[in-house]
């Protein structure tokens, strides 16, 4: 559990800061910027014995997947 939050103005400030931080992470997630971090997390949990892809190589493969699977979208 997280430590007991402080009270008063300090608490409001730190709440605001954590809200902004999570808002920023959501925005990064929506545009897809967190893909590499999530890949590393998954890799550590499921294939700890193997070396993960480097950042540059990961992004190259990540984007090139779109050449084989266009996904779907609407109008």
């Amino acid at each position: 559990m997280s430590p007991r939050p402080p009270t008063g103005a300090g608490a409001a400030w730190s709440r605001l800061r954590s809200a902004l931080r999570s808002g920023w992470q959501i925005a990064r997630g929506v545009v897809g910027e967190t893909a590499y971090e999530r890949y590393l997390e998954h890799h550590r949990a499921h294939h700890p014995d193997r070396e993960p892809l480097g950042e540059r190589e990961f992004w190259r493969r990540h984007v090139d997947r779109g050449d084989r699977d266009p996904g779907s979208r609407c109008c």
Partner: protein
Amino acid sequence: MASTTTTTAPEHEPRRRWNPAQILIWTAVAVIGAVAWGVIAISRGEEISAAWLVFAALASYAIGYRFYARFIARKVLGVDDTRATPAERLNNATDFQPTDRRVLFGHHFAAIAGAGPLVGPVLAAQMGYLPGTIWIIVGVVFAGAVQDMVVLFFSTRRDGRSLGQMAREEIGPVGGAAALIAVLAIMIILLAVLALVVVGALKGSPWGSFSIGMTIPIALFMGFYLRYLRPGRIIETSIIGIALLLASIVGGSWVADSALAGMFTLTGNEVVLALVVYGFVASVLPVWMLLAPRDYLSTFMKVGVIMMLAVSILIAMPGMKTEALTEFAFNGKGPVFAGALFPFVFIQIACGALSGFHALVSSGTTPKLIEKESQVRVIGYGGMLTESFVAIMALAAACIIDPGMYYAMNMPSSELGDTLQSASQAVAGVGFHITPEQLAAAARSVDEHTLVGRSGGAPTLALGLSDVFSQVMGGDAMRAFWYHFAVMFEALFILTTVDAGTRVGRFMLQDTVGNVWKRFGDVTWKPGIWISSAAIVGGWGYFLWAGVNDPLGGINQLFPLFGIANQLLAAVALAVGTTILIKNGKAKYAWVTIVPLVWDAVVTLTASWQKVFSPDPKLGFFAQRAAYQAAIDAGQTSKGSASSVEEMRQVITNSTVDGVLSVLFAVLIIIVLVDAIRVWIKALRSTEPLPDTEVPHTPSQLFAPSGLIPTAEERRERAGAGAGT
């Protein structure tokens, strides 16, 4: 964000009592909604503020989401958070991956919302603001959002199967094949209609053509930057891209006044050629060069502009100049599109109220990323409510424009003639008033040569947006900038849809032909890519070219076909949903999807009937064909807005093609419905449950809140389970 703790959500929650604060809040929401609806419905003859539409919409959405969506999630679908979703079970960190619900909401919304909800309501404004408003709000609460949520849920229970696969497995091979044909046909018509909107905005506008043209080098630059300089820095790259985009809008103003203007002043057919070449090249190039960076830009612009618009409407509170109901709603003689309120308002406005296309995103993509079954409510239902809100704002923006101006922009060019005087007379002919001086002043205020005959919806919306934005930011001095900003914003994501759509169509074609000729199905085989891209581009390019040169006004003819096709796909989706509900023994709740399905079928079939059989040549495609053929046979050299025999021949070809397509769509709807009803009867008669493709229950190890904001209970549960914040 995916904390791994055992969930302890009980199967049957104890019925919670309402506390006074909740009762107070929901009473207030209901009262605000009722007052807003009252103002919209009762006011006659006096101008009301567009803010009332926004209030009526928001209050209705809140009530629909809180009560109806919750009822569907709990009782009808029976969402079960102890069940692991495909994202959890099949997590491979690529297509299956548990994704934070707030992130997924953004993804899903960006995938379903495009130019559709911006264009349809603008065209439907010829009937006044009331029919469109009622349909967008009631339609989304009881049909559109229900469809998205139900399809998302059933696809999640089936490992993210696509709508086509579900139609084949749950209804049968005939229904499945009909769905496949429907998807391909819609894709082609959709791309043609959207491209037509871009042509309307860009022809004869050097400012517009320059700034849209600049998006290509900007996207290429972003592509190379992300590939070789800063891999993965998407936000940074997008901010650079947007700064360049704004610079190119400002630069467009300079180009329009310089010697270069001639180079960027394109005719309709030149814009068509440019779009076709662009569509082909973009579909053949690797995604990292053009499509991916373009996608980032459009997502940013989409979300940004929509938020700006909502805030600006609430600050500026512009009054609506359009009547609540115009006479065109009843006599069906509207100059923007033919046909009476029923069924054509429900066809013109598909996206924003009920859009079958969403079923393709709700099945296949989103279900592979969702963390919890209960999140289908916020993502499926909530995502569609958000799109509906975009449609309401587009409607408001179209209704704050002077009606005379609206008709001068949206009537077929051939009726408007070549001069401001003839346009003013044409508008007077349909019962509205605008002087040539006013038309000239309006064009000058946005730094365009002319606004007359700029049909397609995008320029009308851009004019409305420039009006709202300049009231809030910059005043009259910024009006021209905002107009071109809005044109750029729409054209940007239409072009993104054009290149992504061509690609999606190409894959479908390769996949289908690949069943017969294996080599063709290999998506890395270059000749296959070229041939299939050319086929898809040729398909929409044909309709686009025909639309631009149609003497009767292309968008007026083609948009209803797009609406019918989109609603056909909705019929497939709702039929699949109903079939699964009945198979699961939930027949007593099946009205939830049957009611919208019946409505959708009645609307679509009535519209198709009128388009095929109406004796009125303005409405019925074949009556139109016959009238023009008769005129040619009688030796006439002009008829209505067709001023030569060649143009008359063109009308004949176009109306034949459009008429045949209408017949095809109607037949497909009937096939799907008959096939589905056959399965329903079988399921109801059978004593044992019919085979079902649902994946068996696997206990979930994942905890995640259901809504965007965790409830107090969910916070306690998470804290109790020992997870971090």
